[in-house]
């Protein structure tokens, strides 16, 4: 029983990792808390649903979802944040502006879906269940875990092993210095937002498949969990976000399995609150929350 729960927790962790990696990437590079990220995630699920609904195969839906949510995320960056960065009010303004973008996207999705909960047709993803030892693993779970691992590996490769990754890290470190080195920060921002959105879109499709329910509000709880994960991992830290996703996925699965279910959220957010107070830089983050304002 416990082993089964841990396994389920691991699969859930993969989805959280996909969602929060983009979230933390954007925060790390721009110091902007992108509250439209949940809406981008939801868009991914919607795109996949409507592709399948329109008769397309699931793999096409998956790819389309990744591309569309990536582009949407870039659009959010250009419309909401580009101007704010110049005026230097991105910390407060970014939150407000991205709340606005999130509202617009979710309301449009609400109209498109007629406020209904959408479900993939039966057997969109073949239901195959493997058994080994005492554990049950569905094909879908394997696919989710596999997709999450592949994407995280790709991201890690891009980020730490390529010239693109070096440019991103240079801009994160010091935008001005990076510009003097001939890097166009706006282009880097667009690329990072595309990556972040694509990851969120992929997570959206996986969640939509796993729970087989897609609705315009599905992004909200994940946004909240995303907060908890990136704080726990240390804002802007990619390994931290990965570690925190695993911790979080496990804790959530175990609390749902073994504690009164109504209290799960309370425990998670109380923990978030405590972490913020006791260890604001999270598990692996380096920056102290108190210093961020730079004015103290």
């Amino acid at each position, binding site marked *: 029983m416990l082993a089964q729960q841990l396994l389920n927790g691991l699969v859930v962790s993969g989805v959280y990792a996909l969602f929060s990696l983009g979230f933390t990437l954007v925060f790390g590079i721009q*110091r902007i*808390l992108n509250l439209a990220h949940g809406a981008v995630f939801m868009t991914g699920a919607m795109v996949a649903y409507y592709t399948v609904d329109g008769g397309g195969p699931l793999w096409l839906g998956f790819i389309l979802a990744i591309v569309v949510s990536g582009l949407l995320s870039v659009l959010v960056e250009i*419309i*909401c944040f580009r*101007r*704010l960065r110049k*005026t230097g*009010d991105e*910390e*407060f*303004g970014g*939150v*407000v*502006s991205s*709340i*606005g*973008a*999130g*509202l*617009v996207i*979710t*309301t*449009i999705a609400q*109209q498109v879906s007629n406020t209904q909960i959408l479900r993939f047709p039966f057997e969109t993803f073949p239901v195959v269940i493997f058994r080994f030892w005492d554990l049950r693993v569905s094909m879908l779970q394997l696919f989710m875990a596999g997709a999450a691992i592949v994407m995280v590996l790709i991201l890690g490769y891009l980020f730490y092993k390529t010239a693109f990754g070096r440019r991103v890290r240079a801009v994160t470190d010091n935008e001005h210095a990076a510009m003097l080195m001939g890097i166009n920060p706006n282009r880097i921002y667009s690329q990072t937002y595309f990556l972040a959105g694509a990851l969120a879109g992929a997570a959206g499709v996986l969640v939509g498949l796993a729970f087989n329910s897609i609705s315009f509000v599905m992004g*909200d709880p994940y946004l*909240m969990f995303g*907060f*908890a994960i990136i*704080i726990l991992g240390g804002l802007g830290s990619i390994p931290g976000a990965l570690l925190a996703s695993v911790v979080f996925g496990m804790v959530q699965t175990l609390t749902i399995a073994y504690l*009164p279910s*109504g*209290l*799960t*959220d*309370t425990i998670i*957010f*109380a923990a*978030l*609150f405590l972490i*913020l*107070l006791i260890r*604001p830089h999270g598990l692996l983050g380096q920056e102290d*929350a*108190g*210093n*961020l*304002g730079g*004015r*103290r």
Partner: protein
Amino acid sequence: MNSFVAGYIPLFDLYCLHVGLALSQYIVLRVGVFSLATAAFAGIGAYTAGILAVDLGMHPVIGVIAGTATGMAAAIFLSIPLARLRGVYQAIATVAFIQICLSLNIYSENLTGGAMGLNNIPKTVGTLTLFIFAALATYLIWSLEKGRIGRAFNTIRQDEAVAASLGISIRKHQMLAFAISGALAGLFGGLEAYHSYAIDPKQFGFHLLITILSYVIFGGRNSVIGPLVGAAFLIILPELARPLAENRMVIYGIMLILVINYMPKGVADTAIDALKARKLKARGAASS
């Protein structure tokens, strides 16, 4: 004519309630604390008032006072840990606080009615009461602004180091702003409970947070007129554009993006600044 006026009374009630909440949000932003907890305080106030009336049959006056007091107590309690955080981290912590309140509220079904909410609250608050309280709240904040405290708030928001060097206690003033914010939110939460027969937990969640924040951002964060104008505009706008009423949230969203990008001070404050600049210019032209 009479039915015309009657048709708009619910809108006016909503306006009065939301002005109170917007002022509660305004006053914390005013001292440079990025707290979004007003929705949670309003929920605490509303539930205190509602439970007192439904379960214990208390007089509404006691209920409203108790709602105000609990809202204020919660705010003071929250201000202590929040003083350690800055900027975005405060926003995250307060959103977490809202979520904690929400899930505790849904969990403790015996007390709060859980997800079904609290029903059958006797309606004892009318339009006039709401208006009086909204006016009082506005006056309270306005008079605070005029005095020493208002100037201290300004200094803290603009530069905490300068404020500290002038002997202004940042912690004390932020706690004061929080106390006022919590009290106002609790008060108007309580009024809402007595005004609307029923309350439910979701009502005081993320949605309310966004609505209130929009008022303040849209109107302006530097003068009392800001939240008043913001609330008026954003409540009336969907009514004027009836076909767009379903898309109220799209309008809010676009407004938020446009205003924060192109008019970061808010509509009212930008207008006030423009008027002041014009006056100065006229005076300069006259003297030279």
